[in-house]
């Protein structure tokens, strides 16, 4: 099987720089890589949400493109002694899609038992009334910002049991990590970042508009 080149954010940054400057970047181009990563991450989150809603027009359902998904391990949870809930911290707040799409799954796992059953996700507007309804057997989970809370139906302790969560990743771990994007999203991100940088640097750009009419002139063509 042919081995393919892995796309990284480092490569994307380089491409954008060269495209803007029509050349190799010089010291006059004072946008740092970190700043460009912020633009890229912002654009990729924006593109992602747009793609999901575009996809819904085709299939009738929201579907998260698999390429955005990453599974993280949250190794240790802490129990809140007042509420009794267990709490962990996510690598980033989920994107603004309903739960089930921003986060597409989560389970506890360990070496002796393998992966457990899916936790029962509770949407924010249901957290308050969940105790007034019959409760499923299992671990109920809900998210606030970067915090994730767990409430096991049988109060089983979750100490030292790693939790695995699969969610859309729109942030950067390192510049050299493989881009977790569908290739068709790169074009939108590329253009989005380029426009922002041009505006940010107030760079003059030649605008070639071939369709402008000749206009009035006092020079005759005779």
């Amino acid at each position, binding site marked *: 099987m042919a081995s393919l080149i892995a796309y990284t954010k480092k490569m994307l940054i380089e491409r954008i720089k060269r495209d803007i400057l029509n050349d190799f970047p010089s010291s006059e181009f004072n946008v740092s890589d970190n700043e460009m990563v912020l633009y890229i991450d912002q654009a990729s989150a924006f593109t992602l949400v747009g793609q999901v809603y575009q996809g819904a027009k085709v299939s009738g359902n929201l579907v998260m493109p698999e390429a955005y998904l990453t599974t993280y391990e949250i190794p240790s949870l802490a129990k809140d002694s007042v509420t009794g809930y267990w709490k962990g911290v996510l690598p980033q707040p989920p994107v603004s899609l309903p*739960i*089930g799409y921003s986060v597409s*799954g989560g389970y506890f796992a360990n070496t002796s038992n393998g992966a457990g059953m899916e936790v029962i996700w509770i949407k924010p507007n249901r957290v308050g009334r969940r105790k007034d309804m019959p409760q499923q057997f299992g671990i109920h989970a809900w998210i606030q910002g970067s915090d994730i809370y767990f409430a096991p139906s049988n109060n089983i302790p979750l100490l030292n049991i790693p939790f695995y969560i699969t969610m859309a990743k729109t942030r950067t771990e390192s510049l050299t990590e493989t881009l977790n994007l569908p290739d068709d999203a790169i074009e939108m991100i590329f253009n989005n970042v380029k426009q922002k940088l041009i505006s940010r640097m107030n760079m003059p750009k030649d605008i070639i508009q071939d369709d402008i009419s000749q206009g009035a002139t006092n020079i005759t063509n005779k």
Partner: protein
Amino acid sequence: MPSTEPQFGKYVPLRSVVALAMDELDKSVGDQDRCWQLGLRALVQMNQQVSAEPLTVRIPVSSNKTVPFPTDCLTWTKIGILNSNGEVSTLKINNALTTFRDTNPNRLSDLTADITDSITGIPNAPFFFNYYYNNTYFNLFGVGTGLVQYGSCRVDDENRLVILGFDFEYDSIIFEYISTPQRNGDYRVLLSFQEAIIAFIKWKLKEGTRQEFYAAIAEGRRTLNGKKVTLQGVNQVIRESESQKLRS
């Protein structure tokens, strides 16, 4: 790693039925709890209507001659005692029995009789109650006899009690009832009603209709064990309905 795949026997976990519905509708895990709640509502509704299998328990009679319902009792179907053939002999429902102080341990002593003309010796039941005059029973044409019954009771639904008459002579009763859906790790659903639950979830998510739900129930009912037509069942019906009688 042990398989968590559900086994499809007579019963199937509600969670699996919900997963089938969600898969059909292409829902995400974020909708699982909502769909499960809908499935449970369907289960409760069907349990009361068609799909319940009655549970039978023996419950001791309290010292004040009342019997508390089991905690999971949705509605009762039979109250009685067992005869020597292992059949349930039902008690007579006697709504003249008072519910006055029926939750009180001292109920019996608090029920002070105002008149004292009640018949004694009922423990020697069954009596033939048709017509009694001058120490003789007469068979009156056109008057019903009632069933042979070994005691009377009244059901106090509010306090979830069976109230027995003072003359009830037995230590326990046989109580047959429809229970609320049972948890066994998860609620279990009769496989016959799997499609009905899916139809209910689709109806409530605006993906189906009420008519489809009831059609699925009717379809499920036909496959229930008690509804199956067998040769021996048909034979029994024919034999029992044939008799010497006036025909119009």
